[in-house]
């Protein structure tokens, strides 16, 4: 256990080295937040409330998603794929730890740094610029924390599987583009899933991608209460377990393929 704690700290520090990248990333996230916020302000001049989202909700949604993109690494995360390409993976696999858990621990370290460096600044700027108010109820924040922890697990499980595809296809750029599209679209990153058309909405909400972004945001905005909240968290637990299990199966298959050149 202690080993994984150390690995998590290691993941935090490794991400923290790129401080200027984090800063400029936060600036870009904030800028896009402003563009999207102005779009919502103009759109809401014609409607008061859409799918349970008021303008205030939509603005909060905008700046939270801008911050969450880096937290759940929705755009690009390919360190395992790169270790397969360089051959480093052979050394990592022979270490005395659980390969998947070791990466998961490091990913939590990475996520914690991104929460501080990338998620918080856009939200704070957005709150100041557009008067966004977040809930003060402690229960909401406890549920949000839990939901974020689960969101990172689901997203990691998904990225772990994607990375392992490099055992079969060396070049991950094509997979990268297409998987990013799927994740960005179905996570409810761009438009709240609550605003999607009836029929489609329920399906999208049940997919693993909603568990990465949409559910934690709805929890934070207080859209999910009581039984609905518990059901949403249960769905996240389900996807976290399912994705991590799938990752183990893919890893086992990949190890059958791995041939290490000696010398």
């Amino acid at each position, binding site marked *: 256990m202690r080993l994984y704690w150390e690995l998590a700290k290691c993941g935090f520090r490794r991400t923290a080295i790129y401080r*200027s*990248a984090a800063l*400029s*990333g936060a*600036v*870009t996230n904030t*800028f*896009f937040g*402003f*563009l999207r916020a*102005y*779009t919502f*302000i*103009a*759109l*809401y*001049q*014609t*409607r008061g409330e*859409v*799918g349970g989202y008021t303008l205030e909700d939509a603005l909060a949604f905008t700046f939270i998603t801008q911050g969450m993109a880096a937290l759940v690494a929705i755009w690009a995360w390919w360190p395992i794929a790169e270790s397969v390409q360089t051959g480093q993976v052979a050394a990592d696999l022979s270490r005395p730890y659980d390969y998947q858990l070791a990466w998961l621990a490091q990913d939590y370290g990475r996520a914690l740094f991104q929460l501080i460096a990338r998620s918080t600044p856009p939200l704070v700027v957005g709150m100041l610029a557009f008067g966004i108010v977040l809930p003060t109820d402690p229960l909401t924040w406890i549920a949000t924390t839990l939901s974020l922890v689960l969101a990172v697990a689901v997203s990691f499980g998904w990225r772990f599987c994607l990375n392992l595809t490099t055992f079969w296809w060396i*070049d991950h*750029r*094509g*997979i*990268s*583009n*297409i998987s*990013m*599209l799927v994740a*960005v*679209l179905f996570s409810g990153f*761009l*438009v709240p899933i609550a*605003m*999607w*058309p009836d029929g489609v909405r329920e399906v999208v909400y049940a997919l693993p991608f909603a568990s990465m972004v949409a559910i934690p945001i709805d929890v934070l905005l207080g859209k999910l209460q009581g039984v609905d909240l518990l059901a949403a968290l249960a769905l996240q637990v389900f996807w976290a377990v399912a994705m991590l299990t799938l990752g183990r199966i893919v890893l086992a298959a990949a190890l059958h393929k791995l041939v290490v050149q000696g010398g």
Partner: protein
Amino acid sequence: MGLYVTLIRAQISAQLQYRASFAIQAVGQFLATFTDFIMLLLLFQRFPSIAGWTLGEVAFLYGLGGLAFGISDLLCGGFDGLSKMIRMGTFDRVLIRPVGTFAQVLAGDVQFRRVGRVVQGVVTLGFALSLLDIAWSAPKIAVLVSAIVAGAVIFTAIWVIGAAITFWTVETSEVTNVFTYGGEALVSYPMPIYAEGIRRFFTYVVPLVFVSYLPALFILERPDPLGLPPVLQLCSPIVAVAFLLVARVCWAFGVRHYQGTGS
């Protein structure tokens, strides 16, 4: 110019060697911007219009901006890779060749897979035109064509200025992304939705208003709530050339200050 064509032809034939990989990446590039378009459709099934602009009219802005950006990204993406050239020391090689540095970097990294973005712009523009009932005339066609070319030139000038800054910073500043990728997002919506400061900046400092908004006003015969002189709607090519000249001056200044990283 002849050199530029020769260099590009060599790169295209090199990239087409790996056909499957090329096809997947081109499709990926097509889909990358497709999410934004789906977002637009999702929003417009819930909201009737934005600042008085209908779906067809906003799609027209989207198509114009996307096409201009796509062309620039396809033909002039080399400037995005300058940071790597400086870090690896390969820019020194550019300096000792008896050809201008500008043309060499321009043609240095033409990723033909980015044709996917251009196709996406064309598709979006086609979609917009199918929804709109435009009374076409010779001046309108001239404005449309010149706006696409001018838009590509304006985006290229931004890449060039961003690249010129890397002569001092070495790392590509992510701030450039705010103006390129962020710029593409910005010009996809009607200008009046943005706050005054943002509007002024993107009119008088970085002239993105000339990429889509002003030409679209002319072609769609819409009134301008911003009250800019109507003659500006025809001025995109002039502004683009002037802005490119500014970029060339920045470039020349940057090259003169290039010192190498010593690596």
